[in-house]
Every structure is written in structure tokens, then in C-alpha cells.
């Protein structure tokens, strides 16, 4: 991409330099010093590239601060979490083995 951009930049610039008469100046023209190659590259390549990087960083900053995202179907390897559960969950579950609640509720899958 960079090579293509450079080529596109160089093409019209070269053509313009080649065809423009050197000492033909219109009324009111006050031409300053021309841009050097480095300045041209800086303005037309460097600044856009910098902007590109900044925008990419801004876009990714949001999702990386939110942490890994759950993807249905991609599996799940995190350790179990129990909010508001028994103090000693492992033991409580082991003790409850075999006996089940009679409660109601709902089942769903996605």
C-alpha cells in the first residue's frame, strides 16, 4: 500500500515539475520555497499514517479494556464462579450429592 501511495504521489509531482515553465509567474503570485521530498512525504504520507494508527488504537482501546468477550460456541474454560453461593462451595456441593431440590424454575438453551 505504501509503495502504491508513493508512486501515486510521485507521478503528478514529477509531471508538474516537468511541464511547468520555470519563470512564468502570474500577477499576484508569491511562490514560496517548494516542498522538499521529506516535507512532501511527511505531509501526505506521515500525517495520514499517524492518523490511521491513532484511530486504530482508539477503536481497539475500548474492546481491550472490556476484557475478552464471550463467544457462543467457542467453548468455555474459565473457572466456575458462584455469586452469593455457599461459603465452602466444593464441600456444599459434595454434601448435596444425591439429594436434589424439589423446586421449579425454567430451563433454556441458546
Amino acid at each position: 500500500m505504501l509503495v502504491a501511495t508513493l508512486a501515486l504521489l510521485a507521478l503528478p509531482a514529477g509531471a508538474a515539475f516537468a511541464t511547468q515553465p520555470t519563470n512564468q509567474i502570474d500577477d499576484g503570485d508569491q511562490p514560496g520555497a517548494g516542498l522538499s521530498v521529506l516535507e512532501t512525504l511527511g505531509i501526505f504520507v506521515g500525517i495520514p499514517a499517524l492518523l490511521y494508527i491513532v484511530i486504530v488504537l482508539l477503536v481497539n482501546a475500548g474492546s481491550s479494556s472490556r476484557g475478552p468477550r464471550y463467544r457462543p460456541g467457542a467453548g468455555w474454560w474459565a473457572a466456575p464462579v458462584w455469586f452469593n453461593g455457599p461459603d465452602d462451595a466444593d464441600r456444599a456441593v459434595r454434601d448435596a450429592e444425591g439429594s436434589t431440590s424439589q423446586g421449579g424454575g425454567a430451563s433454556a438453551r441458546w
Partner: protein
Amino acid sequence: MPAGDAFTERQQDDVVRAIRLARKQSDLPVSVYVGALDGDTRAMALQLHRALGDAADGTVLVAVDPGARRLEIVTGNEIRRRLDDRAAGLAAMTMTSAFQGGDLSGGIANGVLALAEFAHAPRSLHTGAP
């Protein structure tokens, strides 16, 4: 998802806040389990509910298995009078639709709040008498 914590700190706060709100607004104790439910998911969820001990009858257990994509809501005998199975089913739908979109903690938090909303206030005796 790589091995490690299931939730970031902020996601955990969301769930904890929803549980606290359910307790405060509707006096509904909710317990949320996120992890594998091996074998028969319903039986496993009922066993987890039993593991809540003395509080089980008055507690709603929301058990989520993100790997197997299963959700079980278990209502204790006592709480079942306030929160019927139809309401639990509606809350389950709230959750699964968020899970499908990849929002695990948000789905749990919204589901817990939905449960709290559906749960009627506990019938208090003798307060209606003049």
C-alpha cells in the same frame, strides 16, 4: 475464550449489583453460578441449589453453563409461590437472548433484575387490617 477469570472486575460488579438490587427491591435472594454443569444439567442445577443449604428454599439459583450453552433457573419451594415457572421462563429468555449476542454478564444482570421484577412482594399477613 482463554482460561482464566470468567469476568472482568467491572462485569463482576454488574452482576453483584443486580443481585443486591433484587434483594433490596423485591426481597428476592438470587444466587448465580457460572460454570460447567456436567451430565444432566437440570439434575446438576438442582444439586447446586440443594447445596445452598438452609437458604435453598427461599433462594433462586441461576445456573449458566456458557460452554454447553445451557441455562437453568431453580426456584426454591418457598420462592416458587412468588415466582412461578412462567415468570422464570420469561427471565430465562431475557438472558439467553443476551447470551446469543455474546453478552454474558449483561445477560445475567438483566435476567436477575427481570426475576426481581416478576417476583411479587412477599405476602405480609395482617397489614391490611385496620
